[in-house]
């Protein structure tokens, strides 16, 4: 079967530490995508996380502008300190921005109603996905994720980098309770049976393909999904269609 992919978990740019040469430029990323039939990707620039979101977001916007296969995610800080400008949602469409991410542990703030309530309500209403990293130690843990969703139950929330150990005991209650929660696939693919069993209970609509590149091998996630014990249609939804639909539903106006 010839599966086309849309990868939602990729970053580009030079890492602050790069002992094993994994940093990836936009050009290298596109080459890799072509080789593996990854037609599109949602990316952020590592500068957004390890430098500062303001120049990071600007760099990202510039780098993806003339790359039709790439979409971007902007990184948010508390607006109270005026370090990042308020977003003009209408303009984000032309800039191909399809969501937001947060690194509260790395950037030293709390991702909650007190800090970002108005913004979170607005993106909840506009169906802008947030790409929430739950494992890396830079972003949020499960407690914060649960609280955030209790406060913003309709938030379109794509949980990324779920964790090396199987996370079904954390993610399944969220899938059960919050209709707009999605799981990025890379660690579901790593954990034996997790992808198949999640599909069996919640449907393939709740999973979106991600590779974790450049920290992890794209080939790993691809090979697992292609040969997973689910229906062909379900594979296509996970690989490409679900994220395409999520992006289509964003209300920019």
């Amino acid at each position, binding site marked *: 079967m010839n599966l086309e992919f849309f990868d939602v978990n990729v970053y580009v740019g030079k890492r602050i530490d790069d*002992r*094993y*040469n*994994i940093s990836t430029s936009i050009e290298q990323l596109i080459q890799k995508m072509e*080789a593996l039939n990854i037609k599109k990707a949602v990316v952020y620039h590592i500068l957004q996380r390890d430098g500062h979101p303001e120049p990071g977001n600007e760099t990202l916007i510039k780098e993806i502008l003339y790359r039709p296969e790439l979409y971007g995610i902007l990184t948010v800080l508390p607006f109270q300190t005026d370090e990042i400008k308020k977003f003009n949602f209408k303009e984000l469409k032309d800039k191909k921005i399809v969501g937001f991410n947060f690194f509260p542990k790395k950037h030293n703030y709390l991702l909650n109603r007190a800090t970002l309530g108005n913004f979170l309500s607005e993106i909840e209403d506009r169906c802008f996905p947030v790409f929430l990293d739950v494992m890396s130690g830079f972003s949020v843990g499960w407690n914060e994720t649960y609280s955030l969703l209790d406060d913003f139950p309709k938030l379109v929330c794509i949980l990324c980098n779920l964790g*090396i*150990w*199987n996370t*079904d*005991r954390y993610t399944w209650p969220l899938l059960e309770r919050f209709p707009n929660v999605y799981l990025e696939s890379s660690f579901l*693919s*790593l*954990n*034996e*049976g*997790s992808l*198949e*069993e999640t599909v069996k209970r919640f449907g393939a609509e709740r999973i979106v393909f991600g590779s974790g*590149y*450049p*920290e*992890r*091998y*794209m*080939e*790993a*996630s*691809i*090979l*697992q999904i*292609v*040969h*997973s*014990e689910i229906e062909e249609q379900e594979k296509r939804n996970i690989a490409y269609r679900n994220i395409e639909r999520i992006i289509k539903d964003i209300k920019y106006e």
Partner: protein
Amino acid sequence: MNSLWNKFLSSGKVNDCPVIDIHCHMGPFYGSHMPYSSPDIMVKRMSLAGVNIVVFSHHYALLNPEEGNKISIEAVKKYPDKFRAYCAINPNYPDAMKKDIETFDRYYRDVYVGFKLLPDYHKYPLSGERYRGVFEYADSNGIMVLTHTWGGSVYDGATEIEKILKKYRKIKLLSGHSIHGDWEKAIEFVKRYENLYLELCAVLDERGILERFVEEAGAERILFGTDFPWFNHHYYIGALLGSSISEDNCRNILYKNSEKLLAL
């Protein structure tokens, strides 16, 4: 990219590349949902990726060897073509350990192919006195010992491993997870001690490490392992094939090195 990638991508398994997974488990585990951990399901899942043989230690055997090793033996007897087991050792139960060493020979090759140690979980250092019986037995018989190894651990980190490598030169010591995180030590040791093997479970979830291992130390003593049924075979095979190492080296890692160890 090597031609094995296209073959695995189109068929899921490759007849002339029969995978051996040298680091596996069986049964449920407290810290992690493992939906496909029974022997029957494991055999079915192995066939999807063309995994010919897995060598496992049952989770229960690692907790309570006296009861758990019996379950491992039964599983191998049920699927003699698919499973081999490690005799699990828990140094906190020296009597059971002594008995297991005494009866090891009865099961050697057909059931057991070596011993499995888990110092980090048993909170007992590799070089501790209670392990001596296992190491001496394995050393005098050239038997495989797979031990969990983790960078920085006082139980099975680099310092402890080197004490064993210096003392026992005939044992085949498999470093499970390749002293995870302490990659440069793993490279240094595998170059220095020719009875050391690096096992790839939890190594392949980070890009770049395997490439460095192979570049520095070759692929002859690197072994494919996944902790299955923790982790998925296709995921790890994809990772291996996605690395920049050659097809010959992929084959060494996926089965040739382990075939030699298991004398298949």
